[in-house]
């Protein structure tokens, strides 16, 4: 018989709840106590976080992970339910239970990340589950601490309030996304990256352009958009066109600089090879230099996906029709509607991640041959 291998997370989780257990047991029936001593839900939460400490060493790894998962999240749900309506009343017991539950979630993720799944399906599932648990716990701790400590709404609203605000403002958020992302960001990104790419090829063909443009490029990329945005509003008006112009300026030079670097990336031997075939400039460009430059170009596309979003939102601080993500953020801050500001931030984060993710997926498909992608 092997001695059971207790995990340190489950053991520590148990140590942390010894104090709440003692308080709970000695105060059964006393009215008016704060969660977790106030009744059934607190008792159940304490029991849940205690459970894995006894079982953790005796179960198969995957069953242990499942047990930790259920206990951690069950306790979290009970805890968040228990504090609702009693904001700011949390005592040490509340935080100790929260910490134990978090340790169990950690244990669960630790087991899952040790797994070497055999099937592709399982490995994809694992790749999704682990960050999902991670993200969920950021939200749980945020929710638990803001409510438990009664942090003023203006400073930091709990995520549930932000979620409720998102749900109730979908039409407004939708209009803002259409204005800022589908008009300014996409247009500016495509035009800015596209012209950056074309100018890079022109600069490659005509050396004096390269010598002249690149130093200017470095200078312009150091320009503060705060300074450019109002000027663009004067030139192109209040609507999305002026924001798109800011995005074009921001995305043009990263693409230019990266593409020029990428075009220089193909090896001497490969270029000599093309010369031995008497390959012309355009053939060499299409068949050798652009494919070799693809990793650089995608790098620029990824950088630009982030820059474009920031540029469009910040540019809207300087005058805009009464719609748009940046406009909403700046006006709702003035009205102290902080949950709406956070709602816009959440939407922007989501949109930015999707944007980046799509570019990264296309990159994986196109540069499948690159050592960083094929993993060799």
């Amino acid at each position, binding site marked *: 018989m092997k001695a059971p291998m207790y995990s340190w997370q489950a053991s520590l989780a148990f140590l942390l709840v010894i104090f709440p257990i003692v308080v709970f047991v000695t105060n059964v029936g006393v009215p008016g106590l704060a969660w977790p001593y106030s009744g059934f839900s607190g008792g159940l939460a304490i029991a849940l976080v205690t459970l894995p400490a006894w079982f953790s060493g005796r179960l198969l790894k995957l069953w242990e992970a499942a047990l930790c998962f259920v206990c951690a999240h069950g306790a979290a749900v009970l805890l968040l339910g228990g504090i609702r309506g009693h904001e700011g009343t949390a005592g040490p017991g509340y935080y100790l239970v929260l910490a134990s539950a978090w340790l169990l979630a950690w244990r669960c993720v630790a087991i899952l990340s040790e797994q070497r799944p055999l099937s592709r399906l399982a490995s994809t599932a694992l790749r999704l589950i682990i960050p999902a648990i991670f993200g969920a716990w950021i939200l749980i701790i945020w929710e638990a601490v803001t409510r438990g400590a009664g942090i003023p709404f203006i400073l930091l609203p709990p995520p549930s309030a932000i979620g409720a605000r998102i749900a109730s403002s979908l039409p407004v958020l939708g209009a803002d996304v259409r204005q800022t992302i589908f008009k300014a960001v996409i247009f500016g990104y495509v035009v800015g990256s596209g012209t950056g790419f074309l100018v890079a090829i022109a600069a490659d063909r005509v050396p004096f352009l390269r010598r002249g443009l690149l130093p200017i490029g470095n200078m312009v990329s150091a320009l503060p958009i705060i300074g450019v945005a109002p000027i663009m509003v004067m030139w192109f008006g209040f609507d999305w066109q002026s924001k798109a112009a800011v995005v074009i300026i921001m995305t043009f030079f990263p693409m230019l600089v990266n593409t020029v670097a990428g075009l220089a990336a193909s090896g001497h*031997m490969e270029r*000599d*090879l093309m*010369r*031995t*075939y*008497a390959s012309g400039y355009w053939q060499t460009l299409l*068949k*050798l230099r652009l494919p070799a430059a693809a990793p650089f170009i995608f790098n620029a596309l990824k950088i630009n996906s982030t820059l474009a979003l920031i540029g469009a939102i910040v540019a809207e601080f300087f005058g805009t029709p009464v719609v748009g993500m940046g406009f909403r953020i700046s006006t709702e801050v003035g009205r102290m509607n902080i949950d709406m500001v956070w709602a816009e931030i959440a939407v922007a984060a989501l949109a930015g991640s999707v944007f980046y993710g799509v570019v990264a997926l296309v990159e994986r498909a196109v540069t499948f041959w690159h050592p960083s992608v*094929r993993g060799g």
Partner: protein
Amino acid sequence: MTGTSPAVVAASKLGLTFQTNDGPVQALSNVDLTIGKGEFVSFIGPSGCGKTTLLRVIADLEKPTSGTISVNGMTAEQAREKRAYGYVFQAAALFPWRTIERNVGLPLEIMGLSKAEQAQRIKRTLDLVNLRGFEKKYPWQLSGGMQQRASIARALAFDADLLLMDEPFGALDEIVRDHLNEQLLELWGRTNKTICFVTHSIPEAVYLSTRIVVMSPRPGRVSDIIESTLPKQRPLDIRETPEFLAIAARVRDGLRAGHSYDD
């Protein structure tokens, strides 16, 4: 041109001096060399003696600073533009984003051959280097020896009469190397191509060549030319025959003579 076969490569008083930060480097000086059709010529010598440079001058990848070079009776540049030769580099230099068959088809695409013609030639050359079945693989999925064979296939694909090879098997282990040497000889015997082959292995040079050009450094020059008396049919164990060893000894002497210049 009936009857007389003109030289495939003719160099006379060829010289090339690189201007470097440390002053001029005389990579080639006073090279006189004529290579006839169907010859297998090896260039051997210590590193830095200008073997690669000479091959690159023939390929018009480098311009001589003195003397003249002609390839197939034309200037080197005209010959390059006519795709007179296939060049095999020291590394395979396959494009990682192309499959093996598309790598071999690269020169054919550039020459604008029809799809059907391309497919037929790719198949033929891949058969020639024993790579059938690997058409759809990417270069990084193949061993070093197979990659180098694919790069030879690529140089053969457009059927140039002249093959320039710069230490193509230098990075491979002895066993693979022997095998590829045999295959190369067989291919040469079958196709009657002219081959210029750079190496710094004496047995390799003697085993393969009809003529061995010994070079020595500072300045890079031809110090000896040795005609091989070996028959055209050469099994691997010819390397143990006295005749083979005698030629190898001559090459070694030639190399040593070139070196004594320094010591």
